[in-house]
């Protein structure tokens, strides 16, 4: 069975909510919709305080090439435009909406019927994906329309669909593949049409046999889509790792997947594309896993963007008493929240609640130069060296040592027997080196 070549780790899977069907979360009383929910430039608010909005109405417009529109996930009245602490741990501008009823914009098709015919042309698809605010739902929230515009001189050969879900605990993509498989495959056909490619692969790790067999059966009806079962190994969901595993190509250092003729999208993105093109529905809700060993009812919810995290936790049986950390995302790459009022954003794939006894880091001792972090690094970097250089602020050297190739998967940190905060320093180094490179470009 296929997998990527370099490094990787095997954390405990703990997919507690794998057999829980997607439930629709009841509408919250209030939502806080952060204005900037994608990589790139922040969007500009186009509604005013006191305005009445309908579900699906545009509330913030992306103004540069790499930025995405934000739509109202609920109907109601704009209470204020203020700041809210989001998953970043800082206050960010958000539109506060008091929910009143659930009146949708008329242009959105809400019927359960599946529309199989793809009538939209290539340009229409790209334009609509941009308008509907679709971003990569794997976590990086890169605006999807940008990925579909292949730069001149490059040619896309394969579309890779990421159904790996290698993060422990998370099951939102898994459930989506099982329950919205057909819609997702239509979404893949739309993406293929937009890119002008004939072949799409769906990479799924073999800890999800039900999803593999389900999609294989469905694929008979769809031309040019193949399901590729993959051996379980973290971080297979990284796009470079997925490309290596599925088509055995290596993306050169500092380059994008298009360099080797591949475009990678998440299964959630494919589903969002289906809804945007066939149903005219903007990206206003997503599947979020709420899980953790101490959670009484782990679940997968279909959640409107902007819903406070506390509402999801209440629905999953409330916050357990011994909670040490609430993490947005998975245990490997996720980030602990500093406020439970933080809203669900387009990139929130899960809410993980860790009990106190599991949430603390191992005590930090000195590096013993065992080199395990180097063995497990899926990008072939030397985390120990990069972390030391970052700690000493030698960012010219981190650049030479290819820190910008780091995918922040945390395998090094996970495996370190000395409990060194390797990922922390790598993230710091990557951030600072990025600033250094950008400033150099300006001169």
């Amino acid at each position: 069975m296929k997998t990527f070549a370099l490094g990787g780790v095997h954390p405990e899977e703990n997919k507690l909510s794998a057999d829980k069907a997607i439930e629709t979360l009841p509408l919250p009383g209030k939502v806080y919709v952060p204005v900037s929910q994608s990589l790139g430039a922040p969007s500009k608010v186009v509604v005013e305080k006191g305005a009445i909005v309908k579900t699906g109405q545009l509330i913030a417009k992306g103004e540069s090439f790499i930025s995405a529109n934000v739509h109202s996930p609920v109907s109601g009245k704009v209470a204020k435009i203020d700041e809210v602490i989001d998953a970043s741990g800082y206050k960010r501008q958000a539109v506060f909406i008091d929910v009143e009823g659930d009146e949708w914009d008329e242009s959105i098709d809400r019927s359960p019927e599946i529309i199989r015919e793809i009538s939209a042309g290539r340009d229409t698809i790209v334009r609509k994906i941009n308008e509907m605010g679709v971003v990569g739902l794997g976590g990086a929230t890169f605006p999807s329309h940008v990925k579909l515009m292949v730069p001149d001189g490059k040619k896309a050969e394969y579309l890779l669909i990421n159904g790996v879900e290698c993060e422990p605990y998370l099951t939102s993509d898994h459930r989506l593949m099982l329950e919205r498989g057909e819609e997702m495959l239509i979404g893949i056909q739309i993406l293929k049409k937009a890119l002008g490619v004939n072949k799409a692969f769906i990479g799924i790790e073999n800890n999800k046999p039900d999803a593999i067999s389900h999609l294989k059966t469905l694929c008979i009806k769809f031309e040019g889509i193949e399901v590729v079962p993959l051996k379980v190994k973290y971080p297979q969901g990284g796009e470079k790792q997925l490309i290596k595993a599925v088509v055995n190509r290596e993306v050169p250092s500092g380059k994008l997947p298009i360099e080797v003729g591949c475009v990678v999208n998440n299964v959630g993105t494919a589903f969002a594309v289906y809804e945007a093109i066939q149903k005219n529905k903007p990206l206003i809700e997503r599947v979020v896993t709420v899980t953790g060993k101490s959670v009484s009812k782990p679940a997968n919810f279909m959640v409107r963007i902007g819903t406070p995290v506390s509402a999801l936790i209440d629905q999953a049986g409330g916050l357990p008493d011994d909670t040490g950390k609430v993490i947005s995302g998975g245990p490997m790459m996720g980030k602990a929240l500093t406020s439970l009022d933080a809203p669900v954003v387009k990139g929130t794939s899960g809410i993980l609640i860790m009990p106190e006894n599991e949430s603390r880091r191992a005590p930090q001792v000195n590096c013993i130069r065992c080199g395990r972090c180097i063995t497990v690094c899926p990008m072939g970097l030397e985390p120990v060296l990069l972390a030391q250089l970052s700690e000493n602020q030698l960012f010219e050297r981190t650049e030479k040592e290819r820190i910008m190739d780091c995918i922040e998967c945390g395998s090094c940190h996970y495996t370190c027997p000395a409990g060194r905060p390797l990922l922390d320093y790598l993230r710091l180094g990557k951030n600072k080196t990025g600033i250094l490179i950008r400033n150099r470009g300006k001169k």
Partner: protein
Amino acid sequence: MNETILFAVISLSAIGVISAVILYFVAQKFKVIEDPRIDIVNEKLPGANCGGCGLAGCRAFAEELVKTGDLSKLNCPVGGSDTMKEIAAVLGLVAEEKDPMIAVVRCNGSRANAPQKVSYEGASSCAFAHYLSAGESGCPNGCLGLGDCVVSCKFDAIYISEETGLPVVSDEKCVACGACVTACPRSIIELRKKGKKDRRIFVSCVNTEKGGPAKKNCSVACIGCGKCVKECPYEAITLVNNLAYIDYDKCRLCRKCEPVCPTGAILELNFPPRKEKAGDAEKTPEPVVAG
């Protein structure tokens, strides 16, 4: 036997003479003429190589000084005006009198004033903690207390207080090289005039949030009310982005702003205790934590 020794001595001597001649001409050809004053200036400098002057080290500073012959733009904060005067004498110039400066920590969000809301256990680096979240108290501008400034200080002049969790600058040891100013990811530390008898008044807060949210996280935050601006007779205080700032060049240390601050964000250091007037009883200022 004798012949062998003789042969060796002669041949070695010959090589020596030829080499000496070659070396002489090479040395003439590649002679580097260095201004002797560079060495003299270099000796006068403190030799800390701290980079506080903005150059790579003391030698580089001496070279730059001798090369440009201009004292107005270059200053050694460590040596202070005494050193600059000596250097000026060597170079035949006149040094401007510069006020001694000192690093000032503009945050009073101690454990008591800004209680901890979340706990951080990542890498012990302010730079990373700043990148990660607003910090343990929730103040997005406040001191993170992980000591990047302490690491950066080459003079052992700054340490983190056990009691408050905030950095404390030593008046005696600080040479105002500015290393901590650069190291602080939140630009909390500022170089200010040392002041007469080390007396200083400054707004000990850099929070630019509006009053409400700022006060929520820290009881001594500047809320941008502007009372001090009105009170100041010398127009030394400005209010930008909900934050008051005292210009140390204009401030005459009259101490009028400190009692009017409703949150106690203005700190005064090393002043004698105030004489209480009978009429001022209701306006008694809060006791000041020297930090």
